[in-house]
C-alpha cells in the first residue's frame, strides 16, 4: 500500500488543465506544481505562486509581491470562491466527454416558482406575446413579492394557476412557447 508521502512524491509534480465555467463563460487554466511553487497560466500569462491552506478552504496565496486571500468551498457540483466580499459560483467543466447541456433549457426553470407562496397577480393571459424580462406572475411569500419574468421572447401557451392559488416551490407557473 502506498503511503500518503509516497503518493505526494509520485504525483507531486503535476500539470493539469482545467476549464471553469462561470455564467456561461469558460475559462481555461493550466496549473503546474513544481516543488513549492505553483505556476498558473491563464490568458497567455504565467503567474508564479506560493500558497498555503491555513485552515480548510482558507487560502493564502502570494502572487509575486501581492497577497491574495480566498475561501473556497465545494458544493455538490460547483465550487464557491470568496474574495473580498464577492462570491463566485464556478463549475469545473466535465472532462469525461459528456456534452455540455444546452443553457437554453435551463432558462425554462425561470418559469418555476422559486418559493412556496400565493399567486397574487397574473399579468398575462393565454396567447399573449411576451418579451424577455416581462413580468408574468407575482407570487407573495412572507411579506415579500417575487416576480416570475419571461426568460425569452415568446407567446403564452398555458397558465397553470389562477390568482390566489397556492404555489409550491419548483412548480411551473406559466408555459411560454419560444418565438
Amino acid at each position, binding site marked *: 500500500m502506498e503511503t500518503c508521502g509516497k*503518493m505526494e512524491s509520485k*504525483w507531486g*509534480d*503535476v*500539470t*493539469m*488543465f*482545467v476549464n*471553469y465555467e*462561470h455564467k456561461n*463563460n469558460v*475559462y*481555461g*487554466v493550466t*496549473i503546474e*506544481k513544481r516543488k513549492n511553487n505553483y505556476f*498558473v497560466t*491563464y*490568458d497567455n500569462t504565467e*503567474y508564479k*505562486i506560493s*500558497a498555503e*491552506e491555513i485552515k480548510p*478552504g482558507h*487560502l493564502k*496565496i502570494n*502572487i509575486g509581491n501581492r497577497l*491574495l486571500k*480566498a*475561501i*473556497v*468551498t465545494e*458544493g455538490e457540483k460547483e*465550487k*464557491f*470562491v*470568496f*474574495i473580498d*466580499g*464577492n*462570491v*463566485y459560483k464556478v463549475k*469545473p*467543466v466535465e*472532462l*469525461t*466527454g459528456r456534452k455540455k447541456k444546452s443553457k437554453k433549457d435551463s432558462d425554462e426553470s425561470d418559469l418555476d416558482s*422559486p*418559493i*412556496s407562496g400565493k399567486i*397574487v397577480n397574473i399579468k398575462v393571459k393565454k396567447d399573449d406575446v411576451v418579451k424577455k424580462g416581462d413580468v408574468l406572475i407575482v407570487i*407573495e*411569500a*412572507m*411579506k*415579500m*413579492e*417575487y*416576480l416570475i419574468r419571461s426568460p425569452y421572447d415568446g407567446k403564452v401557451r398555458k397558465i397553470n394557476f389562477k390568482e390566489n392559488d397556492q404555489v409550491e*416551490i419548483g412548480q411551473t407557473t406559466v408555459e411560454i412557447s419560444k418565438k
Partner: protein
Amino acid sequence: MFKKILIANRGEIAVRIIKACQELGIKTIAIYSDVDKKSPHVLLSDESVCIGDPTPIESYLNIPKIINIAKEKNAEAIHPGYGFLAENPDFAETCNKAGIKFIGPSPKVISLMGDKIAAKKTMEKAKIPVIPGYHGEKQDNESLFKEGKKIGFPLLVKAAAGGGGKGMRIVHYEDSLIESIEGSKRESKSSFGDDTVFLEKYLDKPRHIEFQILADEKGNVIHLFERECSIQRRHQKIIEESPSPVMNKKLREEMGKSAVKAAKAVGYTNAGTVEFMVDKDLNYYFMEMNTRLQVEHPVTEMTTGVDLVKWQLLIANGDELTLKQNQLIQRGHAIECRIYAEDAENGFLPSVGMLKKVEEPSGPNIRVDTGIVSNIQISPYYDPMLSKLIVLAETREDSINKMIWALSNYAILGITSNIPFLKKVFEHEEFKKGNITTHFIDNHFKDWTITKKGLPVDAIIALAVYDSMHSKKEEIVRYKEADPHSPWKHVGRWRVSGEM
C-alpha cells in the same frame, strides 16, 4: 423575575432573545418547525420543542399549539420577537387568558395601532402631526375632488383595502384628479373587492425616520432617539442607521417629544417604535406605530448602550424603568444592514439550498446578529433574512468604511446573499453624502446587476491552486483516460511529470 419563558420565533431574533434571557438567568424554551431542527436558536435554548410542519400557519403562527407547549413546559411568559405573532392582538389576548405574560403591549393597544386609520385619528387628537388626508365615507367623485383640493397637490390616491402599491396613484394636477380616483377605484375593486379610496398628501423626497420608545407599566415613557430607515426596497428596510444624517438637535427634541406623547396617548407599554415620514423641508408626520421589538433595534443599542431586550423582559416583569430621559446619550454612529438570501442580480429572487460555509467578520464594534451556521439548509418557508450586520464608529463616514470592511470579510458560500449589492449601496456617492430618501434604491439601483466583467483572475488562480492541492490520484487517472473523442479533449488531459 420570570424563571422560564417561551420564544415564539426563529432565526436571529430568537437567538438574540435567548441570549438576553440566559444573561438574566431566565430559562428558555425554543420552538421549531421540522426544517429548523438544526437552527442555532434550537441548539442555544435550554429546552426546545418541535411544532411540526414547516408551513407557518402550522408552526410559528399556530396559536393553540404554542400556548399548549408554554403551559406544558411551565413558561411564565412568551416573547413573540418580530413578525409571525408579534402584532397579533388575539395571540396577546390568548396568552393573557392562559395566565402567561405576553412580552409586549396590551392586546387593546396592538389592535388600535394595527388599524392604520384609527391610529392616525388617535394621534391627530393627541396633537401629533399626521399626513394631511381624507379618510372619510363620502366616496362620490364630487366630494373626493373637493377634499383633494383642500389637501393640495401632489397627492396620493390610495385603496382603503390596499397594500403593496395596488390602487395607488400619484396626482400632480387638479385636472387629472377625477381620472385617478376612478382608476384607483377600478383597480381596488378588482383587487380587493372594495373600491373605497383615501386621499393623502404626497411627500416629496420623503425620509423614513422612527423613534424607539420604552414604556413601563407604571406610566414612565422615554425615547431612545431616532433611526433613519429610508433605504428600502419594495417597502422593506434594508439599511438602518442612527443618528439620522438629516437630524438636528431641535428636530430631535421635537420628534422625541411627539413619540413619547404618542405612546402616552394610547397607554403604551414595553418597547415600541413610532414611525414618521419626514419631508425635504424637515416637516414630520406620524405614519404608524410598531408595537414590537424592531429588526433594526441594534443600532439604538449600539449608540445608547441600552439593552432593549433586557428592558422588555424587566418591564414585562413589572419593574420600573430606571433609565431617565435626560441621562440618555446618543454616542457615535451605528449602521445596520440586513443580510438576505437573495440574488440581487436576478430580480432579488430568494436563494434557497445548502449553506456550505459562513465566516463572520469580527473586530471592534462589529456585531453580527445571526440565525445561521455552516451546513444548514436554507428553506423557502420563511423570510429570507439570514442575519444582521451592525457596526458602530465615531462618525458616519467611519461607520460606512467599517461596514464596507465588514461586508468584504463576510463569507456566505453555497447560497447567494445580497452582500455585493449592499456593498455597492454603501459605496454610492449619494449614500455617502447622506442624500437618502425612501426612493433611493429605485432611483439609483433599478435593474442593478453586478459587474459584467466575469470571473476575475484572482478567483481563477484561487480555484486552480485549490484544485491542485485537492486533486486525488484517482481523479488524475480518470482524467488521463478521458474519452479522446470528447469535445473537451483539449482540456481533458492531465500530464503527470515523468510519466508522459
